[in-house]
């Protein structure tokens, strides 16, 4: 079975800075990581690979330095990596991104049986890209999977929505976006990292390779415009209690009681 995992390189949350002129997040010179939910998707793909021998391709669109995320995925156990990169892809919103990624997926041979994505990214948090790729490719999709396994050629997916647990059977090929409950990625071995950075090839596809027109991608191909980027004012002021633990606990309990968040009975129990 062939699995494609779409990943996105995102700024590590504590180092995020904004470009107020261009209304974008500054990515250059910032510590970047694989979007945590995409890492979960990759781990789920690698689990399927271990169980029943799949071929796992990681796919990302981004500037050349996104190579780091792909190589990290190779170190984790992916078999092939594709970087969709071209200066003309810059400024893409989720629609233009999904369009380019969908084209890249359809260029893979053979066409994948399963496409896995994280449910959303920590930087823009839209959750659009997975579903939009599925729409472009006309595939069945399930969002926010908490469990997946194969059963007689179709995929069994568990998904929590509106407080209910749905068990679904999905025919393949399909696209599934995953939630953090699905798995917890393990640690990379140093030898695998070394191998991933020496001698492994990364496929690089640009606008022409994907046979796309400039008007379909990047800023021009985007349906949305960011009007304003700002940090929302904090709603509530946090308070930090300092001191030795027993004393802090006492003060915390008093505080919570005074706010009627707990009552004395809770505190005693």
């Amino acid at each position: 079975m062939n699995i494609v995992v779409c990943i996105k390189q995102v700024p590590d949350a504590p180092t995020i800075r904004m470009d107020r002129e261009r209304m974008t997040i500054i990515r250059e010179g910032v510590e970047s990581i694989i979007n945590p939910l995409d890492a979960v998707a990759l781990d789920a793909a690698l689990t399927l690979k271990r169980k029943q021998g799949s071929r796992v391709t990681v796919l990302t669109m981004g500037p050349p330095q996104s190579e780091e995320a792909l190589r990290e995925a190779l170190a984790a156990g992916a078999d092939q990596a594709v970087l969709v990169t071209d200066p003309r892809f810059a400024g893409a919103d989720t629609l233009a991104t999904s369009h380019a990624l969908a084209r890249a997926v359809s260029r893979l041979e053979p066409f994948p049986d399963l496409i896995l994505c994280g449910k959303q990214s920590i930087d823009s948090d839209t959750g659009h890209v997975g579903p939009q790729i599925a729409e472009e490719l006309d595939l069945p999709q399930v969002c926010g999977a908490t469990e997946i396994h194969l059963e007689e050629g179709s995929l069994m997916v568990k998904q929590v929505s509106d407080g209910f647990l749905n068990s679904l059977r999905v025919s393949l090929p399909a696209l599934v976006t995953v939630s953090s409950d699905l798995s917890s990625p393990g640690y990379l071995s140093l030898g695998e990292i070394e191998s991933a950075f020496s001698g492994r090839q990364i496929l690089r596809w640009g606008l022409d390779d994907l046979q796309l027109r400039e008007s379909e991608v990047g800023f021009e191909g985007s349906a949305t415009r960011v009007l304003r980027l700002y940090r929302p004012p904090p709603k509530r002021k946090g308070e930090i209690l300092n001191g030795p633990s027993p004393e802090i606990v006492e003060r915390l309990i008093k505080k919570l009681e005074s706010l009627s968040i707990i009552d004395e009975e809770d505190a005693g129990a």
Partner: protein
Amino acid sequence: MNLEPTMKQSVIRRSVRRFAEEKIALLAAAMDAKAEFPRALAGEMASLDYFGLEIPKEHGGAGLDTVSAAMVIEELSRVSGAVGLCVSVHNSVAASPVHEFGNAHQRKVFLEPMARGEKIGTFCLTEPNAGSDASAIETTAVKTGDGYLLNGNKIFVTNGGVSGMNLVFALNRPAEERKRYSVFIVESERAGLEKGPVEDLMGMRGNPVCPLVFHDCYVPSENRLGEEGQGLKIALASLSGGRIGIGAQALGIAQASLDVSGKYARERYQFGRPLCAFGGVQGLLADMAVRIEASRLLVYRAASMRHQGLPHTKESAMGKLFASETAVHAARTGLQIHGGYGYTKAYPIERYYRDAKVCEIYEGTSEIQRMVIARSLLAEKGKS
């Protein structure tokens, strides 16, 4: 000159940091309190190649460059000095010399289990009467039949309590001036090798440092590393690499001290303001940060030179000297920022303070490093 980490090094640092924060951080205080080294943790680290950092893949290692290896030690030490110490000593003065000076048979039989982390390594040079003056060692290796009989006492052996493979320096040819010593790879299960009680240390308590006593301990000739009389050469070459490891370790402790102190200075309020709003405290943090960054550049440069095969005795001594004095400074300053709380075991800074001190002592005291640096300088001067 490019001073930025490569993509590979960024992934390595991030990956080791995550393991250290998720797996080691919770154990670090208990390891220190109980003076225990958790075997299960070592097993996990072995599976991630932490015991074969620079050893090539064909011998079971990860095949990293020296700068990446230093980053691994730095990140482990940032969470636990004792774990960083274990990995540093095992890699840089036990596994690396066996790789560098060992023959094909020794690489197969002794190095591979070390690189896979099945056998933890030690470097047995120090003796009761031979510390800074390593040439004063009294342990003897007397030729007998097809091997040698070792007799003597080695002390302060890092990793001693959990070791499986020990590099032992012994007096072998007393008549020859600079070629009196030889090195032997001694498996811990050999008859005649006895491990003494684990030392009750001030810091690095999670590392089982103990004496190793040799009483008519027979080792076959195939366990001799290098030629007879190469002991001093192997010791000096190993220590140049070892100092990069200890420098990286000191760097990790210093960084940890800055990290917790910056956090504390933001959280702790006095006179109605957080400590970090006071110029005096800002100055302390800034000085720590400057020294740490300077240490990092020195240690990485020495590592880079070693990786390129350039002479690096002076540079690794400089890195080790400056980073270890920085670790002590950063831990002391950080403890001062923490005030009375820093003096309790409720905060990790007191552990960093105790751990940092030994960096100025082992693998060559600061005084010895200054001697090594001065000698190199004067020798360079002589040439010009």
